[in-house]
Every structure is written in C-alpha cells, then in structure tokens.
C-alpha cells in the first residue's frame, strides 16, 4: 500500500478551490434551442414532424427524479444548470473551480437513426461551444458522439479536434454492443490521435435491459445497475484488447462509481489467470491495465459515510492515479460544498483535483503549461 493512501482519513472538510471538475452537466438543451444549430434539412424536418416539441433528454436521467437535480439547485423551471448564470453561481464560483468539463447528457447520442444522431450530436456540440465554452473561460467541453455509427462519430471528432476547448470524446455506457468490440475502435483511434480521452458516461440507449437478468421494475434497480454495466464495459475494453491496440488511449468512466473496483479487480485478475490463453493479447492482469488506462470520476461516491470504510476501499484499489475530481453538478450526490469526502485527506484530494486530471487530459495540461509560462 502506498504512503499517500495509508495516511488517509485525517482531515474533516476538504477545500475544492482550484480543482478541475471532470463531470459537470449543463441542462440538456430543449430541442427548439438546438434548431439554429441544425442544418436546414434537419431544421425543417424537425419542425414538420413535430420533433422540435419533443424532449430529447435521456429517459435514463429523468430531470424530475430527485437524484438528478439537487433540491437547492433546482430552478423554478424544474431544471438545474440551464443557464450559464446558474452554472457560474452554483457549480463554479462556490467550489472555486478552476476548470470544469461539461458533459451534456442528451438523447442525440442514442438515436436509432445514424444520421439524425450525428446531426443532433453536431448541434449539441456547436451549441455547447457557442453558448457555454465561448462565454465562460472556466468551461471545457466533451465532443458528444453516437457510438452506433463509428464513421460518423469519427467525422464529428475530426471536425471539433482543432478546438482545444473540447478536451474529450463523450459516449454513453449502454450501447448496442459491448464497448470493446472492434466496430467501436475507429472512435477510440480518432480520440487517441487527437489527444482526447474517451469519456464513457452512465446511461444510454436501453436497447438492452440495464440488468443482465432482464428488465427491472423500478428506478432504483436501473440506477444501481449502472455499476454492473460499467463492470461489463471495463472488462470488454480489456478483454477485446482495446488498450493493446491503442496504447495511448485513456478512458474516463463518469458517474460509474468506483467502490466496486476492488472486487472487480480480484475477480477479473483471478479469472484471467486461468483463461488468459483465450485472449493472448492480454499479457498483464486486468487490474494493471485498468490502472494505467482508465480513470473514474469521483462523484457519486457510493460509500458509507464512515471514513474508515472508504479508506479501506481506497487501500484495496491501491492506485492514487485513478480518481478524477467531479461534482457531478447538478445531480444530488452530496450536500453543500462537500464534494470531497474527508477520507481522501488533503494530499490525495489535491492529486485528484489537479494532478490526475492534468495527467489524463493533455489539452488541459497544455493550457496550464501556457499559464505557468506566461
């Protein structure tokens, strides 16, 4: 166990000032808001077909579910984070955030039509660039793409790649197939080529039941099931050899939780030893590959409030590079400004807030480098 982890759990209230928030959600834009960012074909057909009157927010994160908007952040509209002003006054200023990465959770990433998905993703990204990134220098963006059609996703990545305010590619955790499959590799290759990590965010298309045993009845089941969805995706990426094929690739799991990692590591490493000949390109135990290539946003911390339990979990994970600070604004994951659990301790908290994001996001590191040399 390393020193940093051993000394955890001493401090009480940890400051978030100067941190890089790696998962912040501006409210998903209304379809009418996106119309100006669509080309004339899609604009007209959307209006003709009444699509502009539909909400294309994702059903996997319903805005009115209490967990999706913290009560004190919910505006009269029922949403949170729907204006730049609220994001500044609720998510940036109080935390003293230095930079925040905006993940817009919009249904564009999971449309059945490849072309409509690509058009909408393009619109969301353009809207994000103009209405948010262009107006607030503390904000960075994720290039939302639909993983369903890799060719169109790559085109969108290449189109935005010169804009350094976009710092990662965004896809969702639930897709048509496990994310290690080769059909998705062009997306990962394009991302790595452009120094963009791939963020895999909780949620998705629900084209498969969110649990491996079938459709659950209740929100609590679908929500908790995200953990096992991420476990499956993590192992798929490792087993299919994505990181062997694209060694520069960094993947960020957002809103995946991370306290399931110890048992995942034990189980994956142990099983790998017995069946590794099936995937001979996997020449290291899965946990080592994950620790090198995959990062996890901090919130939600699905741990009990007792400091000791989280300290023990971190000790089992035994890798202080793996977490990235996030508030997950406006989701209700903690009270007040307590985005950093006390168990982290000051040194690790700092690493999670600054060093780990800088090591993960080359474009943010380049920005910081410029500021330092000024």
């Amino acid at each position: 166990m390393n020193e940093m982890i051993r000394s955890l759990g001493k401090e009480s209230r940890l400051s978030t000032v100067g941190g890089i928030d790696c998962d912040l959600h501006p409210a998903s834009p209304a379809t009418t808001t996106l119309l100006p960012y669509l080309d004339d074909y899609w604009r007209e057909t959307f209006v003709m077909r009444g699509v502009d009157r539909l909400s294309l927010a994702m059903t996997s994160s319903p805005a009115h579910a209490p967990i999706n908007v913290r009560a004190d952040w919910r505006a009269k509209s029922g949403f949170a984070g729907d204006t730049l002003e609220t994001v500044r006054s609720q998510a940036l200023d109080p935390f003293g955030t230095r930079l925040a990465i905006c993940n817009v959770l919009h249904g564009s990433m999971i449309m059945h039509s490849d072309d409509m998905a690509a058009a909408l993703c393009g619109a969301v990204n353009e809207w994000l660039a103009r209405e948010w990134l262009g107006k607030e220098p503390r904000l960075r963006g994720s290039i939302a793409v639909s993983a369903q059609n890799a060719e169109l996703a790559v085109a969108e990545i290449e189109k935005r790649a010169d804009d350094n305010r976009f710092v990662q590619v965004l896809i969702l955790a639930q897709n048509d197939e496990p994310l290690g499959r080769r059909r998705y590799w062009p997306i990962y290759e394009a991302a790595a080529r452009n120094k963009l990590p791939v963020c895999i965010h909780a949620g998705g298309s629900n084209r498969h039941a969110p649990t491996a045993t079938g459709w659950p009845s209740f929100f609590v089941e679908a929500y908790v099931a995200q953990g096992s969805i991420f476990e499956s995706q993590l192992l798929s990426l490792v087993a299919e050899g994505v990181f062997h094929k694209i060694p520069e690739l960094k993947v960020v799991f957002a809103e995946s939780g991370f306290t399931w990692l110890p048992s995942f590591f034990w189980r994956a490493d142990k099983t790998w030893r017995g069946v590794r000949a099936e995937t001979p390109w996997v020449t290291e135990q899965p946990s080592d590959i994950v620790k090198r290539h995959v990062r996890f946003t901090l919130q939600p911390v699905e741990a009990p409030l007792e400091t000791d339990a989280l300290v023990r979990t971190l000790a089992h994970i035994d890798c202080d590079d793996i977490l990235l600070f996030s508030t997950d604004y406006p989701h209700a994951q903690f009270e007040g400004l307590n985005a950093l659990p006390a168990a982290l301790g000051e040194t690790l908290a700092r690493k999670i807030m600054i060093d780990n994001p800088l090591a993960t996001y080359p474009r943010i590191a380049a920005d910081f480098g410029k500021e330092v040399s000024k």
Partner: protein
Amino acid sequence: MARHVVAKVDELDIGKSKLVKVAGRDIALFNVKGEFFAIANRCPHEGADLCRGQMVGLAESDEPGQYRMTRHGELVRCPWHGWEFDIRTGKSWCDPARTRVKSFDVSVASGGALVEGPYQAETFPVSIDEDYVVVEI
C-alpha cells in the same frame, strides 16, 4: 543432492505425465517431445496435482484477433483453475516471479551406468538393458 531413479524411459510416452514419489516428495514427471522434466506436483495456488494437468502450447499474440501457438506441449495447465506452468522451469506464465513450482534436474541413464552408481533406486529395480529417468534432488 542425490540422484533418484524414478521411472523407466518407456513408461512415459511423449506428451504424457506421471506422478512419482521421491525422497518423500510428490513430483510431476513430464515427457516433452522425448525430453523429460520434473517439477513439484503441488500447484502453488490451491494444491491441485500438476501431473494431472493438460500439456499445452504457449498462446501468444501480437495484436487482438491474432493468435500464435508455440512451444507445443511445453506448459502444463493446472487441472483445477487453469494456471499455466512452464514445464521446463516451473514458473507460472501469469506471475513467473512469485508463482512458481520447484523444478528438478532430470537425466536419462542406462541401467548399466546406474548399476555403477552412485544413485538411489529406492524400491526401483534396475536392469542393465534398459534406460531410466533419473531425478536429482
């Protein structure tokens, strides 16, 4: 170190393995393409008999989707959970530095040479017309 006669050469065909007991130890003896090797029989994981494992090749790959099988029959897969051990060295494939079994020097000697000693046949009758597998412990 003593030399122990553990088997007749023609008792163990190519690609086969056998448990032998030498100086109170259980040893797994293998015939790999006509060469004999001996490693401790007890799997360091949970104690399965390595002499009962399948003798397999080494699966390797340069990239996902490409498969290469080399060193045919030179590894043994533990019969319980499938960990692979290099029959030549006793080292496991997945964790060669820490997970390994002891390997012993093995030679083949004619009965004539053995009768001149020094060797320990224990309960093993040696005849001068045959060849024997000798393990050094």
